[in-house]
């Protein structure tokens, strides 16, 4: 039997169908095991459904079985690109519950390390983001070079490159090396050069601008409603920086202004992070001026810390936004409940809103611009 070819008028009546594309969970551009299902019409994203949970390890539940020193190692692993910041929230929650006074020197060193960690984390973002945008190689390797300098310093101080386990409730695990200040200044010099490199490499590059300007825009109102925080929120023009609005440690003694941008697009999120590296370098220099000799551990710390009943929520400004630890204690040497408030999980909620109406290729750089760490999302 011969079937007649459809006439042009009949062909026009064919149904068009949206195409579903599955990206991830193992995909080079999803920054970990993140899966999203895109519904596309031609090249335009019509809908986006994110799936998380591939990296869930139950860190919160595990912490219930650990005393307050054992839990620190697990906090490292929730936020592996900025482990110092994650540890900080945890030990601060313990200190708030136990009402421990932390010595000044320990606080300053903590601040220096957290800011250094912000530098290394943002360099990681710049490198990975460069790859997402399509400048393969150059920014990635440049970022790695600068990050390596910071990480080498961390290795000299804490002994490990990523999972530091260096902060303790009440202070620090051990004293920093004798040449600490000198080494920090060396690293800062190389980071400053790195910022200059990136500024020249990407900020004014026409191709880069064409790719990122006015892509994935999110307004300040929407960003606040979603609960975004950190550089992703500040790129939309909201000057919310916990270091400034709710100073912890000695951030109130330092001079700085939250860095914001107006557009709320991918380019602004890049720019805010680049400027934050310079800001962190500046902050560390201010910290180094105020660093004095002294004890690094609170006095009369018991061998096994036992907390009174109560609850505490301590939040800090991690590189990706507000990283908070909510800890409930019912007495004893183990927490009753530890809840991690992860900035990435909240920031990720904006992905759909940013991506719908954009091209498929742009959905990838939008995801990159949020700078997610999947281990923090899933915990």
């Amino acid at each position: 039997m011969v079937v007649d070819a459809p006439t042009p008028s009949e062909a026009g009546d064919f149904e068009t169908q949206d195409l579903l594309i599955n990206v991830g969970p193992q995909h080079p551009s999803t920054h970990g095991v993140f899966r999203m299902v895109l519904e596309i019409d031609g090249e335009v994203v019509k809908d986006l459904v994110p799936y998380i949970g591939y990296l869930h390890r139950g860190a919160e539940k595990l912490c219930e079985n650990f005393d307050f020193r054992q839990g620190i190692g697990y906090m490292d692993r929730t936020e592996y690109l900025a482990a110092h910041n994650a540890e900080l929230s945890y030990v601060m929650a313990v200190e708030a519950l136990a009402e421990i006074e932390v010595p000044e020197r320990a606080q300053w060193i903590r601040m220096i390390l957290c800011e250094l960690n912000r530098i290394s984390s943002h360099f990681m973002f710049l490198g990975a983001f460069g790859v997402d945008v399509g400048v393969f190689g150059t920014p990635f390797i440049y970022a790695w070079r600068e990050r390596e300098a910071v990480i080498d310093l961390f290795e000299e101080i804490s002994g490990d490159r990523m999972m530091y386990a260096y902060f303790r409730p009440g202070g620090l695990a051990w004293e920093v090396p004798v040449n600490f200040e000198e080494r920090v200044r060396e690293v800062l010099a190389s980071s400053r050069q790195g910022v200059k490199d990136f500024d020249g490499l990407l900020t004014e590059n026409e191709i880069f601008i064409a790719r990122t300007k006015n892509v994935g825009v999110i307004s300040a109102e929407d960003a606040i409603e979603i609960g975004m925080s950190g550089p992703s929120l500040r790129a939309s023009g909201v000057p919310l920086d916990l270091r400034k609005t709710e100073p912890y440690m000695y951030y109130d003694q330092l001079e700085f202004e939250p860095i914001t941008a107006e557009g709320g697009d991918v380019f602004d999120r890049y720019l805010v992070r680049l400027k934050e590296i310079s800001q962190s370098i500046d902050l560390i220099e201010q910290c180094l001026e105020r660093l004095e000799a002294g004890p690094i551990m609170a006095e009369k710390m018991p061998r096994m810390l036992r907390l009174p009943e109560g609850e505490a929520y301590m939040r800090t400004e991690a590189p990706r936004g507000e990283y908070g630890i909510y800890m409930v204690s019912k007495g004893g040497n183990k927490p009753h409940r530890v809840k991690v408030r992860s900035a990435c999980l909240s920031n990720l909620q904006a992905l759909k809103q940013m991506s719908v109406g954009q091209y498929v290729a742009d959905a990838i750089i939008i995801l990159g611009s949020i700078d997610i760490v999947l281990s923090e999302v899933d915990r």
Partner: protein
Amino acid sequence: MKGILKSMMVTASTFARKPVTREYPEGHRELPERDRAFPLLLWDQDIDEPFCTGCHACERACPVECMTVIMKDNPNHTSNDGPSKRRKIIDKFYIDYARCMRCNICVEVCNFEAIAMNNTWQGHETSVYDRSDLVMDLPQLLAQSKAKQIEEWVAE
């Protein structure tokens, strides 16, 4: 166009810089003193026995439960006309390197300074063909310290 030229200038300028890469398997970089790989046990060179008395402190403090400790009466104790003051000594000690998360807590809780984090390259390069080969027993844990291949770093 100006921006692209500027980017090119940045890449061109890196030609003049010193390379930062290291040839890894051929050459090893010097590890910092505090570098920590996996824990190992220390050997008391004076009395020729391990420092560890098998007190279970590290086993209890380990967050990932990677250690197994069994103690015994020390045959070298002074009551047996031996040179050692340790009444008890380690009999069997297993550390599962595959589970260890290198948090340094075992070193901190040890009362006898008998355990230390390995800060040599040997401690980092532990690749094996079978995961069960990563469960280290007492002779393996003591070997490096016995041969004086490890310099201990003690936190103040």
